[in-house]
C-alpha cells in the first residue's frame, strides 16, 4: 500500500508537565498526538513506580507522528518545555498511511 515518510516523536515526560507539553505541541502546528500511560521507570534521578500514588505523580509518554519537515519546529517547542525537566525525547523514521492527515 501507498505509505508516506513521517517522523515518530516519543516524549517521556513528568505528568505535571503534560498539559504544558501538549499546548506547546499544538502551538508548533502538530495536528495530533497520543498520550500513553507509564507504569514506572528508572533514570539518573532514580527508580520510580506509579503504584499506590495518589497525586499527579509519575510520567506519561506522548507520541506524535508528523511530516518530516515539521520535525524541527516540534523539537524546538518540545525542548523549551522539557529543557529543565527530567525525561527523554526520541525520534524515529516512520511510514504512515493516509498522509493527508498529518
Amino acid at each position: 500500500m501507498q505509505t508516506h515518510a513521517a517522523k515518530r516523536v516519543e516524549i517521556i515526560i513528568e505528568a505535571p508537565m503534560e498539559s504544558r507539553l501538549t499546548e506547546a505541541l499544538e502551538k508548533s502546528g502538530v495536528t495530533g498526538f497520543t498520550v500513553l500511560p507509564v507504569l514506572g521507570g528508572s533514570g539518573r534521578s532514580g527508580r520510580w513506580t506509579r503504584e499506590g500514588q495518589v497525586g499527579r505523580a509519575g510520567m506519561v509518554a506522548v507520541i506524535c507522528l508528523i511530516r518530516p519537515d515539521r520535525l524541527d519546529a516540534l523539537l524546538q517547542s518540545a525542548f523549551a518545555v522539557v529543557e529543565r525537566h527530567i525525561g527523554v525525547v526520541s525520534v524515529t523514521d516512520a511510514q504512515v498511511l493516509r498522509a493527508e492527515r498529518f
Partner: protein
Amino acid sequence: MTDILTIAGQNLSTPMILCFALGLLAALARSDLTIPEAMAKAMSIYLLFAIGFKGGVSVANHGFDSHLILSLLAGVALSFVLPFVAFALLRGLTNLSSLDAAAVAAHYGSISIVTFVTATSVLASQGIDSEGYMVAVAAAMEAPAILSALWLAARTGSGARMDAKLWHEILLNGSIVLLIGAFVIGILTGPPGMTRIESFIVSPFQGVLCLFLLDMGLVAGRGLRGVRGLLGPGALLFGVIMPLVGAAAGAAAGLALGLSPGGLALMMTLAASASYIAVPAAMRVALPEANPALYLTLSLGVTFPFNLTIGIPTYVAIAQSIGG
C-alpha cells in the same frame, strides 16, 4: 504526660497506625504488595469527599460560627509564614542548597489532608467535638506556602517558574475542589443529606482510612528504600522538629481564635503536617531542579509517620489541657 503516653499507646494499637506500619514494613522487606493506583486514588477521593461533607453538615448543624472567617485568615497566615521558619531551620540544621530548602519549606507550610483526617478520627474515637469548618481551613492552607517558597527560591536566583497557569493548577487542584465542594454540599444539604448517605460516608470511613494508610506506608517505605543516605541527621532532625514548631504556631493561633479543644488540636495538626500531594506536583513545575526524593521522603517518610504516631496524640492531649 501520662495522658499523652496513654493516648499514644492507644493510638499505636489502632488498626490505622498498624496498617501504616504494615505497609512500611512490607515495602522495606521488598514484598510485592501494592495498591493499584486507581484504588489509591479512589480511596483518596472517598476520604476527601467524606471529610468535606461531614464538615459542611456540622456547620449546617451549628450555624456559621463568627470565627469561620478569622480561622481561615489565621490558616492562610500560618501557611504563608511557616515556610520562612522551615527555611531558616533547614539552613541551620542541614547543608541543603537554598533551592532544595525552599522546596522543602513549601511542603511544611502547606498541609497533609490524611494527617488531618486521622486526627479527626482520633478525636471522634475520644468523643471530642471540633468546629466543622476546620476542613475549610485545611483547604485554605494548601496553597499560600507555595508562594512563600517561590519567593524564597527567586530571591536566591534559582529561576522559579511561576505563571498564571500554575496558579490556576494550584488553586483549582483536584483535592481542594473536592474538599471545598463537598463542604459546600454538606452545608447546603445539611442533616437530611447526611441521613441519605451516612451509611456510605460515615460507617465505612475508618476502614477505608486503614487501607489508605496501608498504601501510604507502602509508598513511604518504597521512598525510604530508595534514598538510603540521602537524608543526613540534620534533615531527619528537621523532620521531627518542624512539626513541633508548626504545632506550637498552630496552638498560638488557635488559642487566639478561641477554638474548642478539638478545633485547637486540628489547627495544631494542620500546622504540624507537611503536604505530599499538591505541593510536590507544583514544585515539579515551578522548581524542577529541586530534588523530589528529598522533599517527598522528608514529608512522607519522616514527618507523616511522626505525626501519625507521636504528633497527633500529643497535640490532642495538649489541646485538651490548654484549650477550652
